[in-house]
């Protein structure tokens, strides 16, 4: 009691420590600039005629860039590809990730090593993942998958020619499944084992335990995984850049690749910026829910 009193007195005697609370300012300033400047520029460019190599294209464009964008069939294809990629990868990684998290929560010999192997793909840089899959695994003549197919008496599949989007989905899922597994495993391990033991004693089977105890416990972690993955999956780029360049045709062009192609291959800054605004709006819808869900947990 007296100790607290003394401390309070000392604290009161000192002037308020302004420096302490001001140390956050540099970070806030750079992040504010980092957010506002490019955002305003993107918005501004999206209403301009602006070509990177042709200075004669200039002036206020009004809604032209947006009108051109929404009347361009490529744009709608890219939106559909973006959503197909997003939803497929989410279903695969969260579905399998949840099952694997429960599996790796069980004790078995060598469990630690197996877990390390399973999460490794997350640490491989995207350009390496994509090229290893494309050349060493999925190549119809030289790849492992082709050899496996032949061994089973099947015809090897030329994945990037016949099912290009599925091939990209497979690669991206391989990269993100370990992420889902890592996060969900951490969440599973915080589950109260006594609770599950009690359920087991009451005669609940493995399946019932999973659906009535584990899954509800994981719901929060699952929603965090879904939202974080969504942020990244909306703008998958490197994997497409090094494997298909958006093709064949526009079969694997997503919104990110479309914007890149508009800006740095066709030099159409205005059109690319209009696409950028769409990407920002899409991401913000997700971000809103993510920030809200994290805010609920935040104690300051």
């Amino acid at each position, binding site marked *: 009691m007296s100790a607290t009193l003394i401390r309070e007195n000392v604290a009161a005697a000192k002037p308020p420590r302004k420096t302490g609370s001001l140390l956050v300012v540099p970070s806030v300033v750079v992040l504010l600039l980092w957010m506002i400047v490019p*955002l305003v520029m993107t918005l501004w460019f999206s209403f301009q005629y602006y070509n990177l190599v042709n200075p004669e294209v200039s002036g206020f464009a009004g809604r032209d860039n947006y009108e051109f964008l929404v009347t361009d069939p490529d744009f709608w294809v890219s939106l559909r590809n973006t959503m197909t990629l997003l939803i497929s990868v989410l279903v695969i990684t969260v579905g399998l990730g949840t099952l694997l998290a429960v599996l790796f929560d069980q004790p078995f010999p060598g469990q630690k090593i197996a877990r390390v192997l399973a999460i490794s793909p997350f640490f491989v840089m995207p350009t390496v993942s994509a090229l290893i899959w494309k050349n060493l695994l999925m190549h119809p003549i030289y790849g492992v998958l082709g050899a496996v197919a032949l061994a089973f008496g099947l015809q090897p599949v030329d994945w990037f020619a016949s099912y290009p989007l599925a091939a990209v989905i497979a690669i991206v899922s391989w990269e993100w499944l370990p992420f889902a597994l890592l996060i969900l495993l951490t969440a599973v391990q915080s589950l109260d084992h006594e609770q599950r033991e009690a359920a087991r004693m009451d005669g609940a089977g493995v399946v019932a335990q999973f659906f009535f105890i584990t899954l509800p416990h994981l719901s*929060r972690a699952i929603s965090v995984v879904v939202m974080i993955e969504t942020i990244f999956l909306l703008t998958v780029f490197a994997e497409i850049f090094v494997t298909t360049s958006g093709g064949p045709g526009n079969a694997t062009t997503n919104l990110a690749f479309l914007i890149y192609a508009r800006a740095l291959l066709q030099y159409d800054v205005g059109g690319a910026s209009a696409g950028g605004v769409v990407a920002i709006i899409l991401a913000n819808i997700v971000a809103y829910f993510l920030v809200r869900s994290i805010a609920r947990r935040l104690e300051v």
Partner: protein
Amino acid sequence: MRETVFQRVFAFVVGWGVAILLFFPIAWMVLTSFKSEVDAITPRLTFTPTLSSYAEVLSRADYLSFALNSVVVSVGGTVLALLFAIPAAYSMAFHPTQRTRGTLLWMLSTKMLPPVGVLVPIYILARDSALLDTRTVLVIMYALANLPIVVWMLFTFYKEVPKDILEAGRMDGARTVSEVWYLLLPLTLPGVASTGLLSLILCWNEAFWSLNLTTSSAAPLTAFIASFSSPQGLFFAKLSAASTMAVAPILVFGWFSQRQLVRGLTFGAVK
């Protein structure tokens, strides 16, 4: 807790099966890197191991410059982010105001800005300030892109430090700078280290800005590997050797820090 024998065997078989399947592409890459180009295009397990692909990749003088670029931009971006983040996280953890909560959530929301949405202005700003294809631009981009994650992760570590310890130092008359430097940093060194490690991993593997803002002289390994997407990618053994060297260091870092990564990657929402 007792498991039935069946459950244990099932967990063992499926667990290892899944682990091996997921790791297979990496293992195959390492294996192929020790093959000759002729052996590399036949998917077989028997071959005469050779280091010739490594020798050839390394003898291309530019490999080392790509690797050096990766090291410089990853370390540079991480150090710069930490320089801004340590004071910020300290301030919010130990001197919270009514605005702290809002500031933290706002920082998080800047991470939601999709890079591709601001590709055009960043590219033009970099071009106009003659920063295209320089390490400087990547260091700045990586520091800014990771700053919210770094601040958040440090914040969660700092929150665990008992306030009394810092207050004791304060009563001894420690100034803010020495309070952070002599008290907080030594106390939270493991936390700062794992935050830096996460940032290093993210910078090392970043492949949007590196592909779009660099061409040759500042290009890191992500961009070097991307150059194999041209027909020269058909040199499977060289692709594998270059990839193995690019991936190995960060893979080892990742293995050692898996637990801490969860905290950083989920903004403290899952611990």
